[in-house]
């Protein structure tokens, strides 16, 4: 979290470059490819992060391995290596997504429910919210049986809680005050 501000600076720069080149989506895809590659293999991650490895060597290894990436994305990671900012990589990708979403005028929407929602249910919820908030959404869905029933919807900072667990919490608080 403390690196967020720093990561946002890098992400803004990359995003603007991508915008100028008209390759916002391509760069986003490539950033995620790289970030997933780091996440998938612990050795790669360690190698990328390690301050012990010679910078020049690291640069050339990554330049070869990820040669197929869009130059904007690739150069970002090479710059990070040169600047010893490797630990920012994942956060930059997250911040890039935020910027990309903002540019589209969309918001992040997280739906958590006690059981798996059917496609039709999900669509209804998203449609209702889209008309209420007059905004497009990037939907992510998860299941948490602890909610007992209902759905919990998170849009940015806003939390709409329609779960049984949430109501039980409220009752508990109501009874414990005074």
């Amino acid at each position, binding site marked *: 979290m403390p690196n967020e501000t720093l990561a946002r600076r890098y992400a803004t720069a990359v995003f603007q470059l991508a915008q100028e080149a008209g390759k916002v989506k391509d760069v986003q895809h490539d950033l995620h490819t790289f970030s997933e590659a780091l996440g998938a293999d612990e050795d790669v991650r360690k190698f990328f992060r390690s301050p012990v490895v010679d910078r020049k060597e690291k640069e050339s290894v990554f330049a070869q391995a990820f040669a197929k990436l869009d130059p904007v994305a690739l150069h970002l990671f090479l710059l990070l290596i040169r600047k010893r900012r490797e630990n920012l990589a994942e956060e930059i990708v997250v911040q890039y997504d935020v910027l990309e979403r903002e540019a589209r005028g969309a918001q992040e929407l997280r739906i958590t429910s006690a059981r798996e929602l059917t496609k039709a249910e999900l669509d209804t919820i998203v449609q209702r919210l889209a008309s209420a908030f007059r905004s497009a959404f990037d939907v992510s869905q998860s299941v948490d049986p602890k909610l007992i029933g209902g759905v919990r919807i998170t849009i940015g900072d*806003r*939390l*709409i*809680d*329609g779960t049984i667990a949430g109501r039980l919490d*409220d009752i508990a608080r109501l009874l*414990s005050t005074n």
Partner: protein
Amino acid sequence: MINADEIAGIIKQRIASYQTGTNEAEVGTVIQVGDNIARIYGLDNAQSSELVEFPNGLNGIVLNLEEDSVGVAIMGPDTDIKEGDKVRRTGRIASVPVGDAVLGRVVNPLGQPIDGKGDIATTRFRTIENTAPTVVERQSVKQPLQTGIRAIDALIPIGRGQRELIIGDRGTGKTAIAIDAIINQKGKNVICIYVAIGQKNSTVASLQQTLEKHGAMDYTTIVAVSAAEPASLKWIAPFAGCAMAEYFMYEGKDVLIIYDDLTRHAQAYREVSLLLRRPPGREAFPGDIFFLHSRLLERAAKLSDEKGGGSITALPIIETQAGDVSAYIPTNVISITDGQIYLRNELFFQGIRPAVDVGISVSRVGSSAQIKAMKAVAGRLKLDLAQYRELAAFAKLASDLDKATQQQLNRGDKMTQVLVQPQLHPQPVEDQVAVIFAATRGYLDTIPTARVSEWSERFVQFLHEKYSDVPESIAKSGALPEDVEKKLIAAIDDFNKAF
């Protein structure tokens, strides 16, 4: 005691009235917590000094708005708050219950009762931070607020709507003056608010008992935050007390509020500020420490008649270290207030109690707020005492003194003694006038200095028994016309014969 059935009944009622529905709120996440300060990620729309709610029902006040996070002062113990907890905005600004229901109660700075006397039955709330009355809403201070203490009412008079600082070292009787002033408001239609900041709980308890014993709790509210409580609570305590006072002021009533003491308040605010990483200044106090106290004391006012004519008289207390009034907080508060009552260690140990140093204590608006009779007798007292002090300093060096000087010194001794007054014995202004009149006119010159206190006590008794029309007339008209003065002289002569 409530029995099990009642508890079940209450729960039933609560559950029946429970509103179902979806809950919508803006939430953030705790990323750091410690020393009663939480840093919260998110809450992008939070406003400065907005209340936020932690999962266990604790409240916090938003203080710092930063790029990615907000700094929140937690109003209570932070032990149950963990990293990752969800914090929700309430959209409200911190407020306290106000109205008649708070009178006679001891509450914490959030307005919650801590005296075990049950809920505070009021639906009225007032935000703790409010702007002070503007220039057009005010009028000049013109009515006296009698403290019942001779040294103060005669020499450093306090008017309704004034801000008079009480300053002195520890143990010089600062609080005692405040308590006497509260007790003296009995039957005078003045509401009192006593804000205890960072004091021992035992001190607050004994204070409450004292006030109760003197029947002063009926018109008094104590806002107390003990030394063991978080700095954030100490910081909002005077503002909470002031909000309660303001409610009465805007209802057209007169209020006396005592902040005991602002030194500790400044220290609490310093603690909060430093933990929020605000830059420190002189004595490590933050840059806005002056504004903190000035905006608090500006809320003391005498409202114009169109606004109902209510008033808040503020008596802030400042504790000095070894009589040093040039430290940062004392100088700040001295410059904000309309005068100060300076208490001195040396006087206290000489037995001159209240240990008011009448030489350097001043009241910048006071004398327009004195009744005529007091003005007439006190003008002389002030002058004589000043001359006495000068002479006394000089006489220390000289061995034999001429008769006139000796007499002046003698008179000064008597007058100083007349201003000595036991604690918890506030005196009505008409009695003060009679006693001070006797001293300034030289009727005490033949009384041994050691017996002056006894004289004044017994004389007042005598006056009420034999010449009760004199104090009655002074109390009623507020003046001392010639015929009453003559009667007073006759009474003194009469009494002195038997004394």
